[in-house]
């Protein structure tokens, strides 16, 4: 019963936050002379109506599921992983190296190898954060941001130098295309929907099982909720957080890997855009729960897909969705706004019997 209540309240928070964000964004749009109702109409219909629109939303959702999981698993262990962007780039980089330069493998071997390389690269990069925290007490907020920038510059440098495709017609800095044997197969003809979607579902399921059913997952949750209790119970906080960062990096690496093997096919400068930070929104809105992450990733995928149509048809800049996403995060993270306690303090009670001790 308690669990159902918790789930319901999580759902309530998410729903109210989305609603509030939509209303405020709408008011701002109206104030600037756009038609918010038309914009929302185009946003929604551009994202879900028709097979091609719907499948494209799912395509956009796949990397968000992984970056969302990346933030969530670190958060559950008490760390804030802002480094998904960097881990994603390193993952994409490793995948590209395997996908381009390892030749003569059958697809059945090449795809798993490329994915594994991306996952391992991201995990290693995530583990750096854990290592620096354990060894030097380096604050993970700063280290992750530094590592993000380093990874971005590294990719920028490599695709404009050693890895640059010199045979291409354009002089645009990009790597050679991933070999056909490493490209993730499509699962629906006529759309861009690819096998990465199934991997995302698998990853979410694995995350759920890991958290709820394994010893490591249990330790991870305990460390996140109360590190000193965990220490007293004989768990190693340092090792657990390192494991969490390893997994977080692995998930983010897979996001880059799958994006590379299924959609981009060539490593390019800043191809990931905001995927890393969007993962934070996804994880928060989903309450760090498997199903929640899946649903909120779909919502964000939908928004990012529909925004293009909205920009075309109702002239509202597609960047409006960032405004909306920012507001959604704010209202989710400020969920104390919905608690009775806050309002009790502000609104005088009819018969103020309950006002004795609250300072």
């Amino acid at each position, binding site marked *: 019963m308690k669990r159902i209540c918790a789930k319901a309240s999580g759902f309530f928070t998410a729903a109210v936050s989305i609603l509030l964000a939509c209303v405020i964004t709408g008011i*701002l749009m109206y104030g600037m002379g756009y038609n918010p109702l038309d914009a929302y109409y185009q946003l929604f219909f551009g994202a879900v109506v028709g097979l091609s629109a719907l499948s494209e939303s799912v395509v956009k959702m796949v990397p968000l599921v992984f970056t969302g999981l990346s933030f969530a698993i670190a958060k559950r262990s008490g760390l*804030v992983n802002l480094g998904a962007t960097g881990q994603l780039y390193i993952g994409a980089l490793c995948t590209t190296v395997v996908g381009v330069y390892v030749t003569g493998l059958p697809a059945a071997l090449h795809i798993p190898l490329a994915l594994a390389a991306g996952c391992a690269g991201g995990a290693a990069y995530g583990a750096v954060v854990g290592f620096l925290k354990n060894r030097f007490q380096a604050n993970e907020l700063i280290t992750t*941001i*530094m590592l993000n*920038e380093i990874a971005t510059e590294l990719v920028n440098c490599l695709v404009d130098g050693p890895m640059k495709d010199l045979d291409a017609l354009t002089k645009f800095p990009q790597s050679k295309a991933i070999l056909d044997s490493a490209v993730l197969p499509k699962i629906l003809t006529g759309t861009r929907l690819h096998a990465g979607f199934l991997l995302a579902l698998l990853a979410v399921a694995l995350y759920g099982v890991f958290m709820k059913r394994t010893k490591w997952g249990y330790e991870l949750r305990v460390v996140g909720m109360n590190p000193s209790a965990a220490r007293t119970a004989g768990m190693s906080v340092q090792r657990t957080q390192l494991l969490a960062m390893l997994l977080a990096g692995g998930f983010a690496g897979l996001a880059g890997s799958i994006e590379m093997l299924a959609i981009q096919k060539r490593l390019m400068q800043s191809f990931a855009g905001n995927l890393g930070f969007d993962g934070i929104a996804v994880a928060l809105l989903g309450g760090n729960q498997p199903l929640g992450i899946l649903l909120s990733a779909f919502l964000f995928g939908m928004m990012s897909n529909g925004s293009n149509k909205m920009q075309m048809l109702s002239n509202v800049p597609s*960047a409006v*969705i*960032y405004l909306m*996403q920012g507001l959604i995060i704010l209202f989710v993270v400020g969920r104390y706004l919905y608690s009775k306690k806050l309002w009790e303090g502000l609104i005088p009670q009819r018969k103020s019997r309950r006002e004795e001790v609250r300072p």
Partner: protein
Amino acid sequence: MSALSVFLGSVVMMATTYLLAGLGAVFGERAGIVNIGIEGLMLTGALMAVVGSYTSGSVWVGLLLAMLGSMLLAAVFACFTICLHANQTVTGVALNILASGLTVLLFRTVFGLNGMIPQIDTFEALEIPVLSGLPVVGAIFGQPLPVYLAFVLVPVCQFVMNRTNLGLKIRSVGNHPKACDTVGLPVYRIQAGAILFTGLMSGFAGAFLSTGQLSFFTEGMVAGRGYMVLAAVAFGNYSPLGVMAAALLFGASEALQYRLQVAYPVIPTELYAMLPYIITLFAICIYRRKSNRPVYSGRNYLR
């Protein structure tokens, strides 16, 4: 004027953006507030400065508007973190995402989608009579007014932080809010003040970026400088003087990028761009326990 002199001039110019925002951030950080949202605050400031300068014709009105806009956004941050106990890091990230959307929306509303870049009033270079004639360092003294202001503010901030009652209060709140609350200090008010000051200075930095260093707004123009400010604060070990050193270093590496790109095209510029981040990473590891980082950093104080 020699190449070195020009280089030094551009170092000081580029350091100013980091310095202005860093001086604000240092007070926020010392009060125990981790504000990732500086990136967004600076972006807002950059846009508001251009809007103000464009509509009124005076760059100072732009600056004022930039400071107000950033402070408004900082007030949102303060409201969510202090009143609603929201996680500071996540709120900061939300602020960044929100600002990246809001600025584009505002920018396109004011200037149109495919508008020409209009001429706006910007900060003019102000030569200090005698000093600007000096041989090597001359270009340092031929800068826009905010540059001098930023460097003059450094000792002021250092003094306020270490030698005044106010600075002591801010530092104590960051280290032990409960003790402060017990002796009757208004913990929340001090934190809110620090956040608003961070907003004010970030707005100034953004305004300087768009109307001093450059002369217009482009979408996403802050491009990670807000994160660099956080790095500068950590690298400068949470003191105004240290922030100045870090800002100069970052400014130098940024100025060096542009120069070396022209001089030695063989070495990829990305390597220089990477340098400040790597240095900061090492610096954070070296400080360890000697760090001035507040004990209660990044956590919300619940009464």
